[in-house]
């Protein structure tokens, strides 16, 4: 188990470093004129145009943005967002941080000119949309012992599914039950402890759907008779109770005290004298 974990970590680390190196080597400035086609307007005075440095930043931003979105779309279904796109997201984050926080040569900041000089704030909006998406994917809460453990168990289960898929499903249910149960249990535990990243959630969901819907391995409802027997016994108890108490006890009697005025007066109305009654 520990081998698996180590190798995965290693892989992730190498991936990251490679990207970093790439990012640093991408410094040289490309052709500017190709970026801004001047078909729409005449140029503005020098001081209102954005500087070359900022243009450069904007260009990098565009590149990385496209890379990230590419990656996201490809990893949309089945969800592998966290697994595939973490690195490109962190690169996007870097360049955005460059734009918003850091100053370039000659203490020049591109923050105002790129992010907030107009109503639309394209760069900011685009970035914040993706940021929201990323936050809701919960990818940051990754990589604990349990996660790796879970991944390996899940893989085993899926292999098991594949193995028996073609044959009889009851056999599959029987032989993969233990593995599936483990995954389920592990997942339940992780779910309770903290938030899950979307990859794992989706993987688990798919596995569950496979298990219950496709292979029909849900638990059968086979205890109808005992349940019915016990509950009808309980339902029968009050009948006995009420019947017996109806037979053995009597309703409370109230002693009546006689003093009816209306009776008297109804008789009065029938023609008697005012106070001679009955």
């Amino acid at each position, binding site marked *: 188990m520990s081998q698996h974990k180590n190798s995965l970590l290693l892989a992730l680390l190498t991936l990251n470093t490679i990207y970093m190196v790439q990012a640093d080597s991408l410094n040289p400035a490309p052709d500017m004129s190709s970026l801004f086609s001047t078909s729409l307007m005449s140029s503005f005075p020098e001081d209102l145009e954005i500087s070359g440095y900022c243009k450069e930043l904007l260009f990098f931003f565009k590149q990385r943005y496209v890379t990230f979105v590419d990656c996201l779309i490809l990893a949309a279904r089945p969800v592998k967002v966290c697994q595939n796109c973490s690195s490109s997201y962190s690169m996007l984050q870097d360049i955005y941080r460059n734009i918003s926080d850091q100053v370039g040569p000659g203490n020049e900041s591109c923050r105002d000119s790129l992010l907030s000089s107009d109503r639309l704030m394209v760069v900011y909006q685009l970035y914040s949309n993706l940021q929201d998406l990323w936050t809701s994917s919960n990818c940051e809460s990754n990589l604990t012992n349990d996660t790796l453990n879970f991944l390996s168990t899940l893989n085993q289960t899926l292999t098991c599914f594949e193995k028996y898929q073609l044959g009889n499903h009851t056999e599959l249910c029987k032989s993969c039950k233990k593995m599936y149960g483990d995954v389920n249990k592990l997942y339940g535990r992780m779910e309770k402890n903290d938030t899950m990243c979307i990859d794992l959630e989706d993987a688990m969901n798919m596995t569950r759907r496979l298990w*219950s819907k496709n292979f029909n391995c849900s638990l059968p409802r086979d205890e109808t008779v005992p349940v019915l027997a016990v509950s009808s016994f*309980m339902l029968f108890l009050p009948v006995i109770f009420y019947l017996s108490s109806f037979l053995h006890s009597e*309703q409370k*009697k109230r002693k009546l005290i*006689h003093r009816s005025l209306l009776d008297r007066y109804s008789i009065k109305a029938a023609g008697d004298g005012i106070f001679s*009654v009955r």
Partner: protein
Amino acid sequence: MANITKKVSWSSRPDETGATGETTPLLNGSEQPRHSRQVELMSGEGAIFHIGRHGAGDLEEEMTTEEVKSEGRPKEIPHNEKLLSLKFESLDYDNIENQLFLDEERRMSYMGFRCLEISRWVICALIGFLTGLIACFIDIVVEQVAKVKYNVIKENIETFTEAGGLSISLILWAVLNCSFVIVGAILVAFFEPIAAGSGIPQIKCYLNGVKIPRVVRLKTLVVKVCGVICSVVGGLAVGKEGPMIHSGGVVAAGVSQGRSTSLKRDFKIFEYFRRDTEKRDFVSAGAAAGVSAAFGAPVGGVLFSLEEGASFWNQMLTWRIFFASMISTFTLNFVLSVYHKKPGELSNPGLINFGRFESDVGDFFTSIFHSSTVLQAELLLCLMSAVLFCRYVHRPCLQVMEATLVAAVTAAVSFTMIYFSNDCQPLAPDNTEVYQLQLFCADGEYNSMATAFFNTPEKSVTSLFHDQPGTYNPLTLGLFTLTYFFLACWTYGLAVSAGVFIPSLLIGAAWGRLCGILLFWCSTWADPGKYALIGAAAQLGGIVRMTLSLTVILVEATGNVTYGLPIMLVLMTSKIVGDYFQEGLYDIHIKLQSVPFLHWEAPATSHWLTAREVMSSPVTCLNKIEKVGTIVDILSNTSTNHNGFPVVVQVMEGDVVILCGLILRSQLIVLLKHKVFVELARSRLTQRKLLLKDFRDAYPRFPPIQSIHVSQDERECMMDLTEFMNPTPYTVPQETSLPRVFKLFRALGLRHLVVVDDENRVVGLVSRKDLARYHLGKHGLEELHLAQT
């Protein structure tokens, strides 16, 4: 002579006569023929005036007629709702302005009165605070214990779903339920039967001016709180909101007195408030605080007190009550926010939270028209509860058994419903507060019947209001409503302390949601959650028949004023439809208890009845200076339990005895206890003068006359009542109409009203029971029978 006098004079007052003595029935039967109201003056100074329709001589003759005998014997009839019980007494809301009172008022400085006013406010704050704390306590305990219970059952079900043997889970569930309910039922049935039910009818009666024994005692509060916790955790179809109102009332009655008779502790504070009048004001504040804590609706609480409770009202009192309600809901909110570890967030104003609704009223007006289906349910409920109330189960052990059986059946029915339900819904993301059962659903889905049954009712209500459209399928909802409806009906009559608000909200919400879903199929814009709200409002309105206060409570609970009009229209409809068939549940309850309850108005067609016909006579009167022996005899006569005695004085000319005051039994008892006799005062010069404080100390549990020992010598002493009697009792002439008398009683909170003739001679006495007997039935004016219970 004395012997005969005794026999005649107070066993022949039929309305309060115990009908235990042998002579009584005969007298009752024979009282009609002669209406010559003569005042007979028995000889001697210590005699009792017997003002009656016949003398002792007449009696002898009429006893012989067979017919009279058979008619007069107390008939035994089964208990029904058309009776008035004799065991209930009135409260003294009228201030007794006797000499002592005037003395005290004179001694009190201006500052003293200011302090009184301030201490009233302090008491209201205390009431609100303590009521809020009690609500917190109930809420937290219920939540914790329910969590343990449901988790145990859930784990058990999960293991047994896999391994087989679900019937064992069913038995476990039933046993857990039963054990909680047994505890609750034992507490109620054996220790304090008055704590059964929601307590709202009792508080209503109390505020109306009827003294319900033991209703505002500490013991009742304790039993009530524990009982509610047990029955809610025990999974019965009940809520914890109704009992809060009773609890608030008890807290108020306790705090305002500054002592506890049960605990035998006297804190020597708030002594001035030891009177029925003051206590009543505080109890209405307590009831308001209870409502406010239950629903997070302070204004609704005040209006509840106004509508259901207090018959006597003024503007300063309203303001104080509002203060108490505010304090109560704030306390609850604050403590719960600390408990939920989010101090300062203040998101739990009441025990039940309806949650937020967006203010999109469009659907509402359409949904009102569909809520008429909901109304049918409520009618049935009223009928059912009326039927179920007359039960054959009276003995405490049987009551406990009954409650246990209901708990078991509730568990069994719920389990069967969940077991056979095929309605599976995908798990929502963070729904950790609701207990979800998977059972036979696919993994990652849960049984939606279980969200309705396998939760405390409050949570079910909230999920019915707020879950996404499509969370429930119609069959589930229909079955749920039907079963829960019968369970709720059955549970209401049990001897457990529990409220009816939540079950009716739940039934209504399920009905409403069902309507919403059915409509959802035809058109896509209906939000079933709102239908659920409307349904809940209609159902609740149909059961309790409150109008103003319920509207405000619901508006406040949903936190959206925009919904006011739709809710109001729904409540109006449900009240109109409901009233056509049956009275509200609380009124039925009050009737079944045979309480002499005075409604807002006298029956409409009763102007032809005059005080002469309504009053009870003859009256036992006392002389201004009366012999102790006579007083003791009158008080200790078991066949009568008169509470007010007109005091008369003999005018010089001879036979004429005119009214000069009114004295209460409780006052007489205190006087006897302190031996305020004329002779003793003369011999012992140092004797302390009796103060109003002595009367207050004895309040509210005046000792019975049997516990006061009066020696043979003392019996010969005389007692001067001048200082202690109320010298200006309210009187009416004989020709006053019933509605007029009624208005006096209702507005002034009277207990006794003396009927006098032209010369100020006592002719009769009107008490609450004499008025409450007349009510408008299906065939015009009807008269209730008086009965012993």
